[in-house]
């Protein structure tokens, strides 16, 4: 006869701990990654911090001076314009193309892939030089429009990856055919089925492009320079003028990067929720 089955035998719960070498390596990694950032944060509120281990006092004066800097609002505005314009152009040029290639033109996929990794192989200074050389006539020469073209190319892979993943994940080709077989036209398929489903991918891509362009220095300084000064240019300028104010600018720039990362994570988790929901109901 079977034994009685009073299963749960509770044994003291041994929690799995990371091994010593893991703690060492990850600790080193954290130290390397965080110390420069934390130091910058502290430096931006320190009165004087060049003779002692810890700052001699704390102040918000440098933020005051940062906000008061004559170019502060203009550069911030320029950076926003550049980032948003780039995101917009990116969305218009890349998203329809990726959709088109995945649903109608699978033959162009290798070409698309190559074009999308090409920017990684071209140093930004080389791109800047090439563009400045070719477009040496007005109104394009050294203009913000040329710059937007350049940063769209430069940030293209950041838009492409999340959007392509999203389109692949929903099997856009099958969805399109399913929608059409139910009587929807192309516009309805796009607005009612495809776009809502790949929205998390589009958002992630847009945020990544935004963050990348907001911190972009090389193309901006080499193509337009002082004529269209952005926030990173102001930051570099201040590293020569006043370190404390420069650190306040750095903090602002770090903080924007963190915020965007958190937003991307949040959008990503939303996408996950949407996906599991779709599976459960469908």
């Amino acid at each position: 006869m079977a034994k009685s089955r009073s299963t749960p035998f509770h044994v003291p719960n041994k929690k799995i701990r990371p091994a010593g070498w893991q703690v060492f390596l990850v600790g080193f990694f954290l130290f390397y990654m965080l110390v420069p950032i934390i130091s910058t944060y502290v430096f931006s509120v320190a009165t004087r911090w060049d003779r002692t281990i810890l700052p001699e006092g704390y102040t918000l004066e440098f933020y005051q001076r940062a906000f008061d800097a004559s170019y502060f609002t203009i550069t911030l505005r320029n950076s926003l314009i550049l980032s948003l314009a780039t995101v917009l152009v990116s969305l218009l040029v890349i998203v329809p193309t990726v959709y088109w290639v995945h649903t109608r033109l699978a033959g162009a996929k290798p070409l698309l892939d190559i074009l999308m990794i090409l920017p990684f192989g071209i140093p930004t200074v080389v791109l800047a030089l090439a563009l400045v050389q070719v477009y040496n006539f007005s109104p394009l020469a050294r203009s913000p429009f040329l710059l937007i073209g350049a940063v769209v190319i430069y940030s293209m892979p950041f838009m492409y990856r999340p959007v392509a993943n999203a389109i692949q994940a929903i099997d856009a080709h099958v969805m399109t055919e399913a929608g059409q077989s139910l009587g929807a036209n192309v516009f309805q398929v796009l607005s009612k089925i495809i776009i809502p489903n790949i929205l998390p991918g589009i958002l992630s891509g847009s945020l990544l492009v935004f963050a990348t362009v907001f911190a972009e220095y090389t193309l901006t300084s080499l193509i337009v320079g002082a004529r269209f000064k952005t926030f990173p240019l102001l930051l570099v300028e201040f590293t020569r003028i006043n370190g404390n104010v420069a650190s306040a600018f750095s903090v602002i720039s770090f903080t924007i990067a963190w915020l965007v990362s958190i937003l991307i994570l949040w959008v990503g988790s939303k996408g996950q929720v949407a996906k599991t929901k779709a599976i459960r109901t469908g």
Partner: protein
Amino acid sequence: MSYLELKNINKSYAGVAAVHDFNLDIEKGSLVSFLGPSGCGKTTTLRMIAGFEQLDSGTIRLDGSDIVPVPPNRRDIGMVFQAYALFPNLTVRENIAFGLQMKKTPKKETEKRVNEVLDMVRLQDTAKRFPHQLSGGQQQRIALARALAVQPRVLLLDEPLSALDAEVRVVLRGEIRRIQSELAITTVYVTHDQEEALSISDKVVVMNKGLIEQIGTPEEIYRAPMSRFVATFIGTANQFLGKTSGKNKVLCNNVELLTGDLNGFEEGQAVVVLVRPENVQVQSDKPQQKNWNIVPGGIETITFHGAVTRLGVNVNGQRVVADITVANTQPVSLNQKIWLMFPPDACQVMAAEE
């Protein structure tokens, strides 16, 4: 003393027992299967034998010596995984030679041994290929050959066939059994496929929720299940709940069943009577056999299973399943009134728990 002895083994994860008080003796050269539903602890037990999981308590003795303190790479125990686990960067020949090289076997001998096991699994012509150039069935044969090349003391297989097609599965399990008995290698075989376990094992260990339900030969497990779990997990069994009455009667649901001797039970004890479908015969006229269980019913379902046809029969509100072979029964039809009959010795009685 048995070749491989597992004594009082306990293992739990985060406070929940995966294997509890596991005791098993395995004879040298025999093939023992672990059979049970998903999550019952088969893999965990196997991995403790291999040395990949630590025991919370208990001992494992192989050939008389305790192997618990021995690391996996010194245990001399071969293992075959469900997902083949061939090394992708090595050819078939290099995969098989791997264990021999670890033992610093001379080159000549390694070569000879590799050819031997390749012959054994009948895949001589694949020696130069890489794993991804083989079919699933071929990969699993090579994995088997790789484990056997080093002549391990024990061979462990964890659901080796469950990633394969039904047809390949049947062929390959025969191969495994053939090779196992040729080499007389002590083998533990994990599966959740009862047919597989019954057809190739010397002994079957039926497990449920970390406990051993029953250990026995395939026949014992099938014909004399010792618990309701075993009876229903292995094959199909009709279950009649009732109370004992007299020396050989069980009263259930308005049906009176004649059973074997009810020595071990008290009068009026709640029991369950189990009857295998193939032991239930079907007649269109009332049978006259003396001392058989004979009950009337109506056919509700007819399902064709190939060799047998399975009838679902309503007997006084209870569904009874009977398997009939076309050869020895007249044609039947839905809603037909028929008689079911089965002898008392086809009834297995056990105490109803819970």
